[in-house]
């Protein structure tokens, strides 16, 4: 490097992983095990990534609790849950490989809850036909991240850069060449010369005011990819988890695990009615319990009883709570009542310990005695970077994406429990294929120094600008715009207004100003994040305006029905001549055999004829 970059620490690695959540760590472990020199950068300390917030479990057809389960039923549930809009090949890899990924964690020291026979226990969850979620009480994500963390620190060829933010990706002749990052503690700059980059930076919950996501979720991975020329897809599909806390204000949006409903939690409106019985959509007709009596039998493990309607997919439950409020039957703070208190105290403490603690300490509510008040909260981005289903590589050679950062597996709606399995399956795949990609490269790409200098100038500008917008203000405005215009329930007028405001914010974000220096300066950190959030929000708003139908998590009052025309196309975003261009592209066509599985009844798929015993074809 030239003298100009004296104050930049340089690293040369084969694979750079951006993000140390479940996907990033799993990718890094795989890449390092394939003997690629691997570096992981994470904005937080190691082990603090948002994966720790995943509570309910990790979906995998282990068949430990219900023998009728197999990968095909899991596959079918995932595709149907996605409202037939996901990439069926990803869903197939996912359903087939998830069990092995879970078992592998156990060999690395994870301690999943056991069933009576001593195998990994599995709990029921929304949209899953059979008990399928491997779990550890209600802190499954913590178990996953700690296991991967311990594995990673004892893996050779793997370096972790904690509290480090990537701000720019560099390319050489169209291929990825590396990245610029800065140390959040000291402000020190790092230049990674990397032949492959895996984006595993999660989603963008911070674009919304009420979200279950942490500060890290600022759409960095999507913005970095977009700016590097990669494509985004399905950005209009934003999952609102039906059960977030709504009171007190300080914790509004905080997640209440779906596990509460899996363990028998009942949703009631202000009139005391168990309203979910009235909201079973036609696609699930006949698959859910008809009355409370059947629910009780189901909780008693009666194989003939059907699941409670509280376990409908998240989009359906969130919409139902919204509709109850519209009809004037909401809870005092605009949600619904979720009641688990009818179950045994000890059982609740054993199965949902952190929920007990969360409500006791933050809301003063004893959930073993009284109902919780819950309402929808922004939870997950189904959309993200478009990748090849097998290799997780984007259209930019050497750039990969996995986990929430990537699109494809979840389509219009994600099933609970499919996120942790997504991280593991596609984290591993991306790590493996990134290492292969690097090995097959003939020559190492090089970073252009001028580009690095420009990127450093851009990064430092907010500290040097005497005047400019305050990133805290912009962030607050952004959240208001998204809450007003591109919430769970959408309408053209609101979205158009939101897009105008977002464009205005984008302009103002070109010149930001913050006081203080480079050492742990949250104002500066936010100045780095705000443009990413605005960019991601624009992608969401524009995609949502374009899709003129209601499907899964995307609900429009002006187009309240599903539209067949939109049923097999995805909206893809790419940069063209400095502009954000949106096009529709046909979803991958499903072969007849695959379509058959999706259309069949679960019992059929579980039967011998469908190869029920077959674990891996």
């Amino acid at each position, binding site marked *: 490097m030239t003298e100009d970059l004296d104050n930049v620490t340089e690293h040369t690695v084969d694979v750079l992983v951006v993000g140390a959540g479940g996907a990033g760590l799993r990718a890094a472990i795989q890449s390092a095990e394939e003997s690629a020199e691997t570096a992981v950068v994470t904005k*937080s*300390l*190691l082990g*603090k990534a*948002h994966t*720790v*917030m995943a509570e309910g479990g990790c979906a995998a057809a282990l068949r430990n609790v219900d023998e009728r389960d197999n990968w095909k039923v899991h596959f079918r549930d995932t595709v149907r849950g996605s409202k037939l809009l996901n990439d069926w090949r990803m869903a197939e890899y996912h359903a087939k490989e998830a*069990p*092995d990924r879970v*078992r592998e964690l*156990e060999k690395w*020291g994870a*301690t999943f*809850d*056991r069933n009576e026979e*001593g*195998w990994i*226990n599995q709990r029921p969850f929304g949209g899953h036909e059979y008990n399928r979620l491997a779990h550890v*009480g209600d*802190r499954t994500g*913590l*178990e996953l991240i700690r296991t991967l963390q*311990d594995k990673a620190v*004892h893996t050779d060829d793997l370096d972790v850069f*904690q509290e480090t933010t990537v701000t720019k990706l560099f390319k050489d002749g169209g291929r990825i060449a590396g990245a610029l990052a800065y140390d959040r*503690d000291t402000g020190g700059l790092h230049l990674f010369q990397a032949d492959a980059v895996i984006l595993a930076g999660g989603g963008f919950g911070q674009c919304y005011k009420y979200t279950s996501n*942490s*500060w890290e979720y600022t759409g960095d991975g999507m913005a970095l990819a977009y700016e590097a020329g990669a494509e985004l897809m399905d950005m209009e599909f934003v999952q609102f988890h039906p059960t977030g806390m709504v*009171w*007190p*204000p*300080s914790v509004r949006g905080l*997640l209440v695990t779906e596990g509460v409903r899996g363990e028998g939690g009942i949703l009631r409106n*202000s009139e005391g009615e168990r309203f979910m019985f009235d909201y079973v959509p036609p696609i699930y007709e006949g698959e859910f319990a008809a009355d409370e009596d059947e629910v009780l039998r189901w909780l008693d493990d009666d194989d003939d009883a059907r699941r409670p309607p509280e376990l409908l997919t998240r989009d359906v439950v969130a919409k139902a709570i*919204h509709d109850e*409020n519209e009809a004037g039957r909401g*809870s005092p703070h*605009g949600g619904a*009542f979720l009641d688990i208190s009818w179950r045994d105290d000890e059982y609740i403490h054993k199965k949902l310990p*952190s929920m007990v603690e*969360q409500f006791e*300490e*933050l*809301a*003063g*509510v004893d959930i073993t005695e009284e109902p*919780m*008040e819950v*309402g*929808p909260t922004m939870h997950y981005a189904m959309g993200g970077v478009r990748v090849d289903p097998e290799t997780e590589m984007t259209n930019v050679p050497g750039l990969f994406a996995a986990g929430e950062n990537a699109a494809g597996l979840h389509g219009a709606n994600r099933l609970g429990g499919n996120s942790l399995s997504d991280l593991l399956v596609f984290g591993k795949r991306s790590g493996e294929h990134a290492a292969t990609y690097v090995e097959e490269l003939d020559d190492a790409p090089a970073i252009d120094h001028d580009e690095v200098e420009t990127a450093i100038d851009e990064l430092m500008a907010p500290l040097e600008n005497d005047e400019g917008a305050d990133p*805290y203000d912009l962030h*607050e405005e952004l959240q208001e715009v998204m809450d007003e215009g591109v919430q769970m329930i959408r309408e053209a007028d609101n979205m158009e207004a939101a897009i105008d405001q977002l464009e205005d914010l984008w302009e103002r974000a070109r010149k930001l100003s*913050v*006081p203080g*220096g480079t*050492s*742990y300066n*949250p*104002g500066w950190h*936010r100045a780095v994040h705000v443009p990413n959030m605005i960019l991601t929000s624009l992608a969401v708003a524009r995609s949502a305006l374009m899709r003129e139908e209601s499907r899964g998590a995307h609900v429009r009052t002006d187009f309240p029905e599903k539209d067949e025309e939109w049923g097999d196309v995805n909206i893809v975003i790419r940069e063209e001549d400095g502009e954000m261009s949106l096009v529709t592209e046909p979803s991958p066509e499903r072969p007849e055999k695959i379509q058959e599985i999706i259309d069949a009844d679960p019992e059929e798929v579980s039967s011998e004829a469908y190869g029920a015993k077959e674990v891996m074809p």
Partner: protein
Amino acid sequence: MAAPAETTQADQPSSGPEEPPRGGQATFEVWRGDEDDGEFETFEVETQPGMVVLDAMHEIQADQAPDLAVRWNCKAGKCGSCSAEVNGHPKLMCMTRLEDLEEGPIHVAPMKTFPVEKDLVCDVSWNYEQNEEIEPFDGRELETPAEKEKGEFRMQQEDLDRVQEFRKCIECYLCQDVCHVLRNHDKYDAFQGPRFMIRYAGVEMHPADDGDRVEEIWDEGGIGYCNITKCCTDVCPADIEITDNGIIPMKERVASEKFDPLAMLWQKVRGED
């Protein structure tokens, strides 16, 4: 979300206090400084119902001191990032409600045991170094045909319960902060601290682990420095019984292997070296 609806049922719970506690305003004295120097700076913050200390720090960042350094992530007591000392008590700022604190100004300071990087943010890298030195989980081979077919360890829940308690650890390092061996006696080279005593316990008691770390717990771990005064257990936000269920059982295992001639003889006789 729709506007709050009137509730018609008299017996519905109110889900929290109706009146804002602490009179709508609170005074905070927040430590500002770096590794060399610093002092407490006073801020006034508008309060709202259910507010936690971390909310107040965010209010200060947004309106008064944009560069106030605070480390946080989940804001739900699950990640262990926002450790600090509130009125002298090691706490997670996200789980400390203002209404539970004593009247008067609220002191917020960084953890004392680790070097300050800036304001409330400490350099906790020492802890990560300790973890790297501990022998990780060393899983046994799958044994029975059933295990091999399943690809899983067959373990009973009652055997896993003890280990799962330690796995609740969120690595907030409040136990490390409050431990007087580190906090007052600076035994960083001799004692790895309570968090890593339960890390040892978590792998050592694992029913499928083949490793033996008892020597390591005494030598590298320095468990002898712990005088079981239990402050670690008192501050643990994950409610882990660090001392009774983790450290003391490990001390007993050390005693069996190093200080108890009868136990040592018994192990020789039974061929469990």
